[in-house]
């Protein structure tokens, strides 16, 4: 659609003594240049010229060819305009000849007129040139050859439908690229043929004249389907660069519908499979050990909370990575901090004894802490244990989660309120929740009981004995449950 400003530019002025110019073909730049030069030198206004293409539709008011006007003084145009005109000539818009002529006249009075990009006429012509270049670029990209055999050997034939009159202009590209192949490109307007030596032209063709298949297309489709990543679907980005109008001549586009339909299902399945399959099938230990070692090494540099500043070292979990039970304590104490191992101090000794009574082999269990650095207040020479606060539990929870992700234990035991908080994410009362397991986010069971150090702190001998028996009873129940789950 023409901009009103352009129409004014083209149609203003009297239509007296109209000139008729007939060009040899749609992209006949030389013909246009020769005619336009003479007309512009004579100062003929754009509105007085009717442009038409030989064999094309004739202008409604078209008359016979007119004599060229008397020549006027010649003038030069910048190189950039010649390039622009060569490109714009290939555009499908029938107004292109007149618009270019209007620009030519503008250049006669102002040589630099082309540099004013904000000028509507320049803008329109540049826009047309851009369309032609894009069409040409898409032709380079989307032409698909099919191989056929004839007497002289293999020949490659393509069917293509460009928007603009670009086939002659783009022949050189294919000639340079496939110089040693015999090929033809058929289009509705024009066909071009290369025999390895010469380029020849023929009249327009129909799709039926092109070969209808090539066995390699199936391989190409396999590639197209396999290189597509179903985890990312961006249909808009695809159609912006590969508009649907080109699809009908590209074999691979037949797959797009199925690929899109399958993409969502494929990704969902991928995530599901990776959570379920890996939970049940044992993974090669080499990888698991390496991952755990890497995790531990990474944890040694942890600065997620303030506690790393004062503690001697991180106390990471220990035990077999295929353990059926994971014990999560509160945090390392004075001795654990120095030794770098969990549950080795007084509470650890009590824990070991209780495990033995309950019939659990500590070497078969994975033992770790909810918080991995020792938190304390210094009193004289003694470092007094101090309870970790919620932010520290939250910061360290990341490590506990990773440990459990690697081990995927069917059963996790929270020793004390801190561990329960870390595992469940909420505050729990031990006395109320020690009888039945909770289910964790990953599907594993979580049993909650007291921390062994709680038993150490009880002042009353009698109460301490009772609580210890309860703790052992909890552990026995946990052992039985673990055995039941394993069976």
């Amino acid at each position, binding site marked *: 659609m023409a901009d009103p400003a352009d129409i004014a530019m083209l149609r203003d002025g009297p239509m007296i003594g109209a000139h008729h110019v007939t060009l040899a073909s749609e992209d006949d730049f030389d013909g246009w240049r020769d005619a336009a030069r003479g007309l512009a030198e004579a100062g003929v206004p754009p509105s007085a010229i009717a442009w038409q293409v030989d064999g094309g539709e004739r202008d409604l008011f078209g008359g016979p060819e007119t004599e060229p006007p008397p020549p006027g003084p010649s003038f030069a145009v910048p190189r950039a305009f010649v390039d622009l005109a060569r490109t714009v000539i290939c555009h499908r818009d029938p107004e292109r000849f007149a618009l270019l002529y209007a620009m030519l006249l503008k250049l006669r009075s102002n040589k630099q007129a082309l540099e*004013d990009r904000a000028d509507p006429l320049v803008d329109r012509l540049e826009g047309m040139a851009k369309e032609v270049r894009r069409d040409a670029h898409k032709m380079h990209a989307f032409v698909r050859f099919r191989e056929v055999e004839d007497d002289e050997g293999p020949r490659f034939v393509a069917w293509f439908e460009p928007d603009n009159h670009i086939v002659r202009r783009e022949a050189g590209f294919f000639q340079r*690229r496939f110089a040693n192949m015999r090929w033809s490109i058929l289009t509705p307007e024009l066909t071009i043929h290369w025999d390895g030596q010469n380029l020849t032209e023929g009249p327009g063709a129909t799709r039926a004249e092109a070969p209808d298949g090539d066995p390699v297309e199936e*391989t190409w489709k396999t590639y*197209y389907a396999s*290189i*597509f990543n179903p985890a*990312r679907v961006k249909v808009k980005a695809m159609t912006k660069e590969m508009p649907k109008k080109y699809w009908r001549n590209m074999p691979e586009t037949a797959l797009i519908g199925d690929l899109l339909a399958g993409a969502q299902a494929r990704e969902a399945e991928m995530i599901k499979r990776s959570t379920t399959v890996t939970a049940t099938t044992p993974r090669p230990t080499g990888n698991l050990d390496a991952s755990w070692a890497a995790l531990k090494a990474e944890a040694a540099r942890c600065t997620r909370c303030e506690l790393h500043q004062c503690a001697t070292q991180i106390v990471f979990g220990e035990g077999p990575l295929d353990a059926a039970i994971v014990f999560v304590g509160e945090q390392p104490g004075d001795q654990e901090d120095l030794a770098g191992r969990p549950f080795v101090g007084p509470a650890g000794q009590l824990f070991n004894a209780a495990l033995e009574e309950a019939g659990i082999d500590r070497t078969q269990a994975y033992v770790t802490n909810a918080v991995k650095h020792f938190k304390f207040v210094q009193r004289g020479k003694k470092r007094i244990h101090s309870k970790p606060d919620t932010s520290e539990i939250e910061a360290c929870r990341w490590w506990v989660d990773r440990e459990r992700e690697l081990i995927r234990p069917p059963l996790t035991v929270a020793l004390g309120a801190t561990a329960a908080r870390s595992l469940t994410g909420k505050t729990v009362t031990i006395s109320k929740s020690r009888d039945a397991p909770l289910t964790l986010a990953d599907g594993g069971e979580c049993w909650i009981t007291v921390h062994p150090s709680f038993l150490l702190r009880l002042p009353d001998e009698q109460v301490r004995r009772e609580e210890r028996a309860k703790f052992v009873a909890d552990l026995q129940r946990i052992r039985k449950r673990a055995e039941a789950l394993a069976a």
Partner: protein
Amino acid sequence: MAQLDTREKLAILADAAKYDASCASSGTVKRDSRGGKGVGSTEGMGICHAYAPDGRCISLLKILLTNSCIFDCHYCINRKSSNVRRARFTAQEVVHLTLAFYKRNYIEGLFLSSGIIRSSNYTMEQLVEVARALREDHDFRGYIHLKTIPDADPELVRQAALYADRVSINVELPTVSGLERLAPEKSATRIEGAMKDMKLGIEDGKDARKKYRSAPKFAPAGQSTQMIVGADAANDGDIVMRASQLYDRFALRRVYYSAFSPIPSPSAVLPLKRPPLMREHRLYQSDWLMRFYGFKPREVVSAAGDDGMLPLDIDPKLAWALKFRDSFPVDVNKAPREQLLRVPGLGTKAVKRLLQSRRWRAITLDDVARLTVSIAKVRPFITTSDWRPTLLTDRADLKTLVTPRETQLDLFAG
């Protein structure tokens, strides 16, 4: 195991290669097949021969020679402990496939990478053999991109660069600790060492070409790298700084980002969820700001939020402009190029046209509208001969005025 035919192998080995982001076929020397006996041409600009429904361009035949690997990098689908199907092409098969596709105008060339089998040197030899056969036996003049193996013998890497247009080595992860954790067998120092060698090789090659026209071309399209986004804890700020450091130190043509996508049977130390795809896009935009818009890495980082992440809802240039409003409005009739480039909504082309046009006329708002995509986005940040954004840059709700409207919730957005 039954023998796989070429199509089955192609399905496995193209599938395994799709996590490499690059498919560029641009930036190399001009050449064509005239006067030779084979096919192929490169004319500077890359060509995307098709687009997959993931929105990515298909320019090259991008495959692995084999997806067997002796390494165990957690983020990689081809790691030793993964249970994907394995396949291996012979060098001949890759050569034939490349030529068959090229002759039908499906591709611009080959992007060949490989899992590491037997040893780094053995693998590298196989990659070089494919490139050699294409170039020497078949006189192939299309584009070749080879992924090089960091530990391979420098002589093999040099040969690769002589046959290929572009070579690349992936830094894999933006942080050294991430690499240690997720790719235990790879080493950041070795990767960077290989990139440094390549840089020196490319420079030497250019010098030699200046002296002797007959000197061989050494990786004429330069080297590039890729890092995975979202598999470790690095934020956008870290990534931008890392990328700019890589550009500076190794004269890279491109740093590619690949948003970590959930892979089948992932390792347990990885996040299962993918980062939003938009994050990758924002990182590329910040990359553009540094390469074409004269932004310093520090400035890009300053556009990020307190958590070091670039905003996902607006582009980094707009984010920067909203944060540093004292730099605006910019007078399009007077401001220098550097300042115009900072205006959100003005691209390099629009700026070039404005600079050209304003020599001929006083630019009005209508003129700007004709030269840009969205005048609404530009308007608050500029003055023209007929427009002044009164107090607009001081408004608290400016962000809502210039943020693109959500059209529809995207089902697939991350």
